[in-house]
């Protein structure tokens, strides 16, 4: 029972990450009709916003390190800690949540620049060319990050008060031994808020209504005298921000490196397609579904019966769903069918 409960939590947590990435991807798919292979790179850029913010906070003086005798080495002491002995360390401790403040404007700018500078020229181009150009862009982004930050993962720590584990077991009466890290719970709540926010934006604002209308029939909306192009730019920026924030918050779980976007790219495409093209709800549902299925498939009891099942489970589920439901879980007819 405990094990199953924990695996559900794991699945939800994993699913939250998948859903967040897939949400932005499907938003861009559904509204703009763009196959964005650079979406993983945006997720990675978000994570590196956190890294940069951390670096910014810890700009340091170099003090010669006397403990290293064989060659000249330097120690770093952050200015913040020198100037503000009390507040400085606290600020640095909260670098990850605070870096959201940096990530939002940065990601909006990146999204805006990318859409205006490149993506907009590809709306009417074939998907193959969209793939090539966004893939090329993803490589360029990755390599730039690698050239600056190096290839190794850079550890990021959650704030001290969120470092330990919560005894979730005692909350629901499963006993003290059932614990779960605070940060993962925070991530779960955070992604819930973001997902809800995006849905509310599309569902309850006039702005969102226009965008939804644009998803259905772009031409008619254009004929009504609405500047749909401008709205699409904003949609792209929103997708970028969602990906970026997913990246920021994921850094304590997965030390970021330049390649983390590529690692998530294939998976997020699978999630989007399983959810059904053009369906936001489908993407979220598929994200959580695949996360939970993957967690359960990794249990020793399951692996004993089907060795190696955890290696392929996501793809297997994707195949089964796509073969039984022609348009994924909640796909609409006519979106990227051909």
């Amino acid at each position, binding site marked *: 029972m405990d094990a199953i409960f924990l695996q559900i939590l794991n699945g939800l947590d994993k699913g939250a990450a998948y859903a967040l990435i897939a949400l932005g991807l499907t938003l861009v798919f559904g509204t703009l009709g763009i196959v964005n292979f650079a979406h993983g790179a945006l997720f990675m850029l978000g994570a590196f916003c956190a890294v940069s913010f951390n670096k910014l906070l810890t700009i340091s003086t170099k003090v010669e390190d006397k403990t290293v005798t064989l060659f000249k080495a330097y120690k770093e002491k952050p200015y913040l800690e020198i100037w503000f002995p009390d507040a400085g360390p606290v600020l640095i401790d909260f670098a990850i949540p605070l870096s959201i403040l940096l990530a939002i404007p940065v990601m909006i700018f990146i999204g805006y620049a990318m859409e205006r500078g490149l993506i907009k020229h590809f709306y009417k181009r074939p998907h193959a060319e969209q793939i090539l150009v966004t893939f090329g862009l993803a490589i360029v982004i990755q390599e730039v990050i690698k050239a600056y930050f190096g290839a190794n993962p850079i550890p990021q720590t959650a704030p001290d008060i969120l470092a330990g584990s919560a005894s979730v077991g005692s909350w629901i009466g499963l006993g003290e031994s059932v614990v779960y890290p605070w940060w993962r719970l925070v991530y779960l709540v955070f992604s819930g808020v973001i997902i809800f926010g995006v849905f509310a934006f599309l569902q309850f604002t006039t702005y969102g209504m226009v965008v939804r209308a644009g998803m259905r029939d772009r031409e008619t909306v254009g004929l009504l005298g609405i500047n749909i192009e401008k709205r699409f730019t904003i949609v792209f920026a929103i997708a970028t921000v969602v990906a970026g924030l997913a990246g920021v918050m994921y850094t304590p*779980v997965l030390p970021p490196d330049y390649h983390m976007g590529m690692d998530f790219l294939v998976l997020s495409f699978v999630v989007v397609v399983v959810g059904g093209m053009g369906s936001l709800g489908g993407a979220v549902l598929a994200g959580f579904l695949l996360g939970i299925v993957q967690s359960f498939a990794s249990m020793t009891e399951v692996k004993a019966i089907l060795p190696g099942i955890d290696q392929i489970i996501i793809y297997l589920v994707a195949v089964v769903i796509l073969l039984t439901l022609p348009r994924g879980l909640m796909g609409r007819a006519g979106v990227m069918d051909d």
Partner: protein
Amino acid sequence: MTKDNRFDFSRRGLLKASAATGIVAATPSIFMRNAWAENFRNNPGDAGEVKLGFNVPQTGPYSEEGKDELRAFQLAVKHLNGEGDGGMLNTFKPSSLKGNGILGKKVTYATGDTQTKSDAARASAKRMIEKEKVLMISGGSSSGVAVAVQSLCQEEGIIFMAGLTHSNDTTGKDKRRYGFRHFFNAYMSGRALGPVLDKEYGKERRAYHLTADYNWGWTQEESMKNTTEELGWQTANTVKTPVGAGDFSQYITPVLNSGADVLILNHYGKDMINSLTQAVQFGLRDKQVNGKNFEIVVPLFSRLMAQGAGSAIKGILGSTNWNWSLQDDGSQAFVKSFGAEYGAPPSMAAHTCYVQTLLYANACEMAGTFYPPEVIKSLEGFKFDGMGNGPTEYRAEDHQCFKDVLVVRGNENPTSQFDLLKVVEQTPRSQVEYDWKIFGGELGPYKV
């Protein structure tokens, strides 16, 4: 392998040229030594330079390690050519190196990108052999690549001095006559960790293994399992995890209530960083099980990789081939010249690559020729000292180096940003030696 069907006119030219030199040459002994040495792949002949090939990961997850390896190679080349402060050339014994290149020829090099993929690594190695005409290939940061390039080198008749490769297979099942490994292996990690685990954690323990699901992971798990069970530990479970899983939470939560009190992470690289970070996040280090502190062990530790796990490595035991904090003359000389050149201490990958290059050069000097079978013979059974791990021997039967292995612990209070690992024990060589027959495999012929 001499390729009769290659359009290799230059070799014929070289043959003539060197035959002519032979007639002119006054000392018959030199002539005799070179007589059988004429006909081999990429014979430098009368050229004033020899080229070595450094095949390291420059893209992909191990590219930082590859970069460090490349730095070490460049330093080794400098030292061989008599530039710089000479590094380990001054401490290496018995050395035939003179600081004037190899056999009087200036050393140059070519580099390539393995991408940590066997196909790409072989393509890159082939370019070096076919186009750059290198005499020796070294480098690499994974066993898959090492095994693939090693077998290619055997076919091509080029010596391969393996870089970082930790699988038993490299000098076991897949060993080759033309391949040499200075690095230690999974079996030795297990043997070296055994006594320390006994001393630190006692005999009454239950171990839970998480293992990367590929060849290296399995051999690592097997040797750790054997070692710990010899100590009297029980094995609670062994679970295979997909390579590159990223999030390991679904494998870590079952550990919490499994009754195990030690978690052994048979992971390397990004898998190690992620699984260790997450295991610590799940509070495993703060746990008490069976009245004992819960412990995590990472059998193969690398400083470069440990950086990625940040504070999660504190107090974690593991083994490593070499660490820059060693106090012997060889290590100090190397750290000094590496640090002066690049402003950071060398990693263990850099160390093994540097040493391998020097050993190859020295073997050529000892053999008095570049002719691979003779070079191989002088490397086989070669005993040396002053390279950082105490007295070392290249065992002739499987081309594996035997030397002391370091057991390290993640530093609780690092004094500098490089001071991540603390040497707990230098396990003597006798403890990690094993019968070469246990892993099978065949070296193959000297002449190809």
